[in-house]
């Protein structure tokens, strides 16, 4: 072994030789224990089963003889066997999350114990790695489980959006728009400088699924439009979910492999074991999306511009620096014609100059309907099944956009014999859309909706844009009509420039388990996640930015298969409990991407490659990656109050060179339940301390280390790839330390949890920019050390609890800081992401800085004051050469509040979230000053000429208070110029009322009908947003930019508004 690089490497050849020996030894040790154990004298053997209220078995429940240390835990099927001393023995049956039950055995030899769920502590059972359910108190690391029934009370169709604000350390930000939109999920900060790879792993029924954003690969072509097609998690139907466990940090996910370095979201789907009544359940809902927060624009002036010659504001068909909308008659061209060669005005009649356009007018009310029908069945207590079909349909807030999702899911469990069980879970989803809106402004995306709307003048209504948006010139060419002529008519954007996708996805796994005996079981599991996504984008002939049209198709296919083997052995020896397992995993991932594009179409409105005048530009890529792993874990407990947990894993990844493709990562953790071992004041129900240490390794993308030639621009040409690879590229390494405390008091009515952690990720595999004069633009190599440290607090209380009224209140708080400790020698900075107008604003890592630092340009300053100088008779400011730090997109801390009030079966739930600190650069805000639509530009009335704050040269090398002035128009454009990152970056602190929902079960009013459930819930989401900075009042402070396949936080660039959602859900169980 070699520990020089922090990750212990097992050399390939050594392990190949010694592996069998090693495992033979390990298994031999296990077997020895199995049979060397001498039995306790039998007086009376009792067998039993522990079930929940839905008759689902509870594996791992504790069964202890009251007043003794004698006890056992239930097996996988909830069964247990215990040897009693006498008939008067009382059993204490407990399971975390359930009310402990005392059972008098009497002379029974077999009993069934049904536990009721405890309402005080709903989250106390967690699903750990490999799908094993464990009591939370046994864990040496932080984890939190959320039941779907709770989070689905305000169902949106996208589970990730329903988790915001609920879990400390879990930050979920959603993109604007409605229907399909991606979420960015960050757990405990960003560990990697490659911000696209900072997401936690998503596990569904034990199988990892892809949550790829799947944008378009790099390039600055106008055809690479920022479109959000949704991420993988949007394909999971929230109604299929039973619960979600958030495993934080590398320790929690050491056994899922390197992709879980950032933690994991472990989703379990509903099992047929939960069957109630006839087993039929139907849920139907409808919700409405309304734009409530959008640009705060002035509505007092027409389109126009300032004329420095006359000193007057003049009418123009764009923006808002125009004439008063006072009803006076004026010749206003309705829509301009572009490039027809003759004049621009199409209307010469004077009409009253009045307000005819409020920016919000453009948006529709979005409607989402969803229907979900499931049937659970059980046969002879041997077969449990559940089948569900679902349909969700969304009409977006952007006209002519929408989203449709149809799914079918099947879960089938069969106990073929006492020992053999099979469990199948399959889920087929078809997501599609006839049109997904383009987001953002981008470098040259002037066909973007936001850009069109911010230039559309107040005196021209959206309906004017709708009429005859095409004209034909004398040469018979079709041209667009728009105002101004050089934006794309927004109606053309929504009605003609369609972006479609059709994604068919299957997720499934088949698990075969075999119980050798009560102590030893094994399973083999085969899982897959596969999808095909077909996308098209069309741009009509005759618009300003695509004068000859454009058509593009993209076909993505993805397949991941996982084969798992696991052997688990558990046994209690007097006061020592042992649970150990050894497993292996083979992961195979293939993905293909095919893109073809033409830029010159011949016949109008026909979108086919056959209708192209140019040769299609085609790119294809097919990559495959395999990772083989072996792992083992061992948990030891002493009297159920001290738990030691050790894991080890070795991966072999095909993406690294044979010399470096093997990496080993261990973890260890300790949990100590003080309240079980030491006499504490009665008010303390539970006190636990825990600590853990973990390492993970990570590989890189497939096929990047073996360099080949790229195809050149001309047919049949080749060129060098634009990056080079360090031949000694080694795996990344993350080391995590974590400590936590959990305290429950006053009959569990107060539950307090605090965790603190420090994660260091080093040897990151990065594409670091190099001097272009080398002939390449980047080099792939190991660089960088990032330290994330933070603290998370969760406090839950039950303020009132009586027969009629219950009031739960919980608050969570977390703080994370990502520090860039070092990059690498010779690299002073690393550009993580680029915003618009390079080098206007960038996300950059600098040693000593923090993760998420925003850098950009600023004017030349003296002692912090802008230096003004006179050019052409007016004051102006010029840009300094170097970029300065203007902010950081990560909040200083975040806090969520969840409160629920239950009164006679009616439950009210309110979720709020506050994020403190962090900054956001806004291009929209800047553009609204440029166009003169921001309501603040009304300042032109009171200060037609501005003497800006700042200094100017005193003529002899020094500076004096500025006395130079400039017209308001120039001032507004100067002081909020979009290239000036410093003046357009603001404190992004915000509060959001995420959810208010009211639900009730009406079952009791229909006692004659066979309802097992009849719940109705009405809800609202994103009802209110408050931002600390008034400059961010225009839009969602969570906005992030879509940049060729990445979601970039900290930069807002014409994102669509996030609507408020109001809805109702009805759920019936028969």
């Amino acid at each position, binding site marked *: 072994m070699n520990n020089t690089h922090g990750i212990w490497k097992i050399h390939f050849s050594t392990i190949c030789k010694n592996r069998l020996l090693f495992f033979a030894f390990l298994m031999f040790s296990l077997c020895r224990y199995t049979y060397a154990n001498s039995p306790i004298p039998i007086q009376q053997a009792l067998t039993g089963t522990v079930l929940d209220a839905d008759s689902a078995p509870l594996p791992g429940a504790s069964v202890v003889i009251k007043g003794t240390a004698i006890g056992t835990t239930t097996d996988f099927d909830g069964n247990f066997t215990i040897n009693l001393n006498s008939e008067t023995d009382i059993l204490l049956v407990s399971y975390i999350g359930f009310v402990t039950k005392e059972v008098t055995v009497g002379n029974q030899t077999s009993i069934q114990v049904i536990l009721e769920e405890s309402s005080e502590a709903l989250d106390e059972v967690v699903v750990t790695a490999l799908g094993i359910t464990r009591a939370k108190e046994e864990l040496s690391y932080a984890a939190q489980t959320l039941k779907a029934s709770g989070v689905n009370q305000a169902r949106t169709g996208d589970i990730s959006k329903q988790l915001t604000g609920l879990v400390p350390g879990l930050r979920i930000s959603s993109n604007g728009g409605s229907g399909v939109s991606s979420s960015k999920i960050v757990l405990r900060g960003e560990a990697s400088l490659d911000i696209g790879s900072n997401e936690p792993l998503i596990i569904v029924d034990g199988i990892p699924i892809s949550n790829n954003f799947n944008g378009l690969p790099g390039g600055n072509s106008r055809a690479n439009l920022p479109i959000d097609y949704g991420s993988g998690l949007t394909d999971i139907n929230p109604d299929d979910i039973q619960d979600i466990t958030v495993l934080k940090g590398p320790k929690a996910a050491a056994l899922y492999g390197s992709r879980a370095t950032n933690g994991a979201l472990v989703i379990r789907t509903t099992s047929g074991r939960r069957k109630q009544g006839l087993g039929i359940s139907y849920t139907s809902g409808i919700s409405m999306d309304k734009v409530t927060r959008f640009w705060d624009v002035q509505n007092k002036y027409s389109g126009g511009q300032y004329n420095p010659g006359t000193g007057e504001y003049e009418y123009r068909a764009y923006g808002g620096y125009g004439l008063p909308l006072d009803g006076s008659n004026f010749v206003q061209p309705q829509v301009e014609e572009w490039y027809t060669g003759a004049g621009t005005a199409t209307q010469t009649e004077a009409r009253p100059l009045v307000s005819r356009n409020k920016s919000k007018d453009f948006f529709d009310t979005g409607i989402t309907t969803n229907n979900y029908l499931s049937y659970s069945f059980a046969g002879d207590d041997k077969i449990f099944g559940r089948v569900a079909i679902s349909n969700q349909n969304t009409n977006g807030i952007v006209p002519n956009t929408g989203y449709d999702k149809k799914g079918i899911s099947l879960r089938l469990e069969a106990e073929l014999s006492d020992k053999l069980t099979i469990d199948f879970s399959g889920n087929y989803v078809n997501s599609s859309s006839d049109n997904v809106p383009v987001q953002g402004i981008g470098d040259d995306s002037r066909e973007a909706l936001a850009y069109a709307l911010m230039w559309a003048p107040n005196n021209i209504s959206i309906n004017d844009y709708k009429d005859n948006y095409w004209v034909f010139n004398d040469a018979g060419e079709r041209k667009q009509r728009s105002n101004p002529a050089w934006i794309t008519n927004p109606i053309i954007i929504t009605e003609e420039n369609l972006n479609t996708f059709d994604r068919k996805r299957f997720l499934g796994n088949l698990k075969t388990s075999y119980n050798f005996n009560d102590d030893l079981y094994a399973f083999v599991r085969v899982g897959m996640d596969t999808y095909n996504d077909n996308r098209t984008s069309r741009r009509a002939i005759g618009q300003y930015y695509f*004068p000859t049209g454009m058509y593009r198709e993209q076909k993505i296919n993805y397949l991941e298969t996982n084969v798992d083997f696991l052997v688990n052995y558990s046994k209690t020896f007097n006061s020592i409990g042992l649970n150990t397992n050894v497993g292996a995993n083979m992961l195979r991932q293939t993905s293909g991407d095919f893109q073809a594009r033409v830029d010159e179409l011949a016949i109008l409105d026909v979108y086919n490659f056959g209708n192209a005048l140019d040769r299609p530009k085609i790119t294809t890529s097919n990559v495959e990656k395999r990772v083989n792993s072996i792992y083992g874990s061992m948990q030891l407990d002493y009297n159920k109050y001290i738990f030691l947990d050790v894991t080890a894993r070795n991966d072999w990844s095909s993406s690294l060179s044979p010399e470096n493709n093997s990496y080993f990562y261990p973890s260890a953790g300790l949990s100590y339940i003080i309240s079980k071992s030491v006499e504490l004041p009665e008010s303390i129900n539970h006190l636990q301390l825990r600590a853990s240490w973990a390492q993970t390794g990570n590989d890189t993308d497939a096929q990047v280390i073996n360099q080949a030639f790229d195809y050149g621009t001309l047919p049949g040409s080749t060129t060098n790839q634009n990056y080079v690879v360090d031949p000694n590229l080694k795996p990344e390494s993350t080391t995590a330390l974590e400590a936590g405390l959990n305290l429950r008091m006053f009959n569990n009515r107060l539950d307090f949890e605090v965790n603190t952690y420090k994660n260091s990720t080093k040897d990151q595999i990065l594409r670091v*920019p190099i001097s272009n004069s080398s002939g390449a633009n980047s080099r792939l190599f190991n660089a960088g050390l990032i330290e994330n440290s933070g603290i998370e607090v969760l406090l839950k209380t039950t303020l009132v609890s009586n027969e009629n009224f219950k009031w739960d209140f919980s608050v969570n708080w977390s703080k994370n800081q990502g520090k860039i400790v070092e990059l690498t020698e010779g690299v002073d900075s690393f550009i993580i992401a680029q915003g618009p107008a390079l080098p206007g604003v960038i996300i950059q890592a600098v040693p000593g800085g923090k993760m998420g630092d925003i850098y950009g340009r600023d004017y030349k300053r003296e002692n912090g004051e802008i230096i003004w100088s006179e050019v052409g008779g007016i004051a102006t400011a010029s840009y300094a050469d170097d970029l300065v730090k203007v902010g950081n997109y990560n909040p200083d801390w975040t806090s969520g509040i969840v409160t629920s009030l239950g009164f006679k079966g009616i439950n009210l739930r309110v979720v709020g979230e506050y994020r403190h600190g962090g900054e956001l650069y806004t291009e929209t805000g800047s553009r609204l000053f440029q166009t003169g639509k921001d309501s603040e530009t009304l300042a032109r009335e009171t200060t037609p000429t501005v003497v800006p704050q700042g200094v100017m040269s005193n003529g002899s090398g020094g500076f004096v208070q500025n006395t130079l002035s400039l017209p308001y128009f120039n001032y507004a454009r100067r002081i909020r110029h979009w290239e000036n990152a410093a003046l357009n970056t603001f404190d992004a602190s915000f509060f959001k009322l995420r959810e208010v929902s009211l639900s009730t079960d009406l079952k009791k009013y229909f006692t004659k009908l066979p309802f097992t459930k009849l719940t109705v819930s009405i809800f609202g989401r994103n009802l209110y947003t408050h931002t600390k900075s008034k400059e961010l009042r225009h839009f969602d402070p969570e906005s992030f930019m879509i940049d060729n396949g990445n979601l970039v936080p900290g930069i807002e660039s014409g994102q669509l508004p996030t609507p408020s959602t109001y809805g109702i859900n009805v759920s019936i169980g028969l």
Partner: protein
Amino acid sequence: MKKNIKKQVLGFLLLIGLIGCTKDFEEINQSTDLPAETPPSALLKSVIFDPINPSLNLQLKFTGQVMQYLVFSNASSFDRYQFSSDTGVTDAYWAAAYKAIRDARTLESIADGDSGYLAAVKILTAYNYAMLSDLWIDVPAVESGYPSENTSPKYDNQQEIFTLILNNLKEANEMLANSDQNFEKGGDILFKGDVMRWRKMANSLRLKYLLRVSEPGKYVSSQSEFEAIIADPATYPIITSNEDQAVYDISGIAPDVSDFATSTTLTGITLSQRFIDQFVNGTNTSSADTDDDDPRFAFFATKSDPANTDAYVGIVSGGTEATAKTVADLPNSVKLKPIFQQDKGLLDYGYITHAELQFILAEAKLKGWALPLTTKEYFDAGVTANFDFWGIEMPVNFLERMDVSITGNGASNDEQLERVFQQKWVAGFAINMFDIWADKKRTDKPALNIGVEANTIHNTVPTRMFYPILEKTVNATNYNAASSNIGGDNITTPQWYQN
């Protein structure tokens, strides 16, 4: 029971045994989409073609503005000499030229002794070096193009770079003269394997660069080397007609299409007032010439409203943004005809044209260098070559017009030089709007008006571009050394070859 378990456990362990064996991993990790090796022909195509569009774009949006052919009717800053505000086109050229240099190095290593490829690499790389050095003065040369070995190349000083360029061009001519193995595997999209044209390109480029470094005290043997080439056409064949000039013939079929042909690139770009002055008003102010307009003007220019009968007006380079917009909106404002969009194959990319070489010879003759023909003969051949290039018929007696003729009005030597550069400027339009900037730096000709806005920033035509912003971070040590060596990373730092 026990035995059974052991068997099963053993079976399981065997399965695990397979996990770590990773024999096919290396194969999986090889791309099946991209070639691991390339024939020289495929690489040569990229070496030739890939820098062409970045260079054209640079000329269209940058040097074309600096040299006042073109102006932006909406926001632009290059004609106002406010270079720092947008470095996109120059940075893109920097990256593309060095990428081509790297491809050229790779081509050299796989050329297998084929002199065609080896000489082509020398000539094209020399040309790229010259472009880069003209834009930035000191630039990485010798150490550039080897990213696996060196990710932060040292900058060479301009004198050494031009020495290297001249030597490489000389060697390339010799290699091709003495070789019988040329472009055996094809791929010569520039001259279709015609070795003589490559030699003519090398020698003609050498004349261009010898003249560029000919100021006193710079490259001392420039005159003698120049004269030696002219004196021995058998050893040093040079371009003698439009048929053998060094241009890349753009087919106009995508992706072989120029940025001039895509109307979105041209959005907002139009002809300048300087352009009108040159062709219509006649800048040769000493004459009272009233002859008809230069027909090449009508070939390129039109009005906003073609039916308008007023005199042409154009945006004055370096003026205020507001004035530019006002002028652009006038019905008689000059516009670039969409000739390049309508005929996408119309434009060629000029490394060195026949016309340009004739003007080079004319200038050399005016310097008093020993050349067989008269200045007027070279000059007239240059103007004629440009008419022929566009296929425009030259009016009778055009060359004797007072505003054209080199010797008209008994022009002085300096006035003759001015006229050479005026016609060189005209002949460079669209084909080569780059080298005329180097001439302007060196000779301060042709005359340009520095606009009011430009005036307030720099009362002179800039001589270079800021280094790419990335160099300051990823190649800081070498950047700093180069910056101090040239006298500061400013846009008015003089080129070494300037006096």
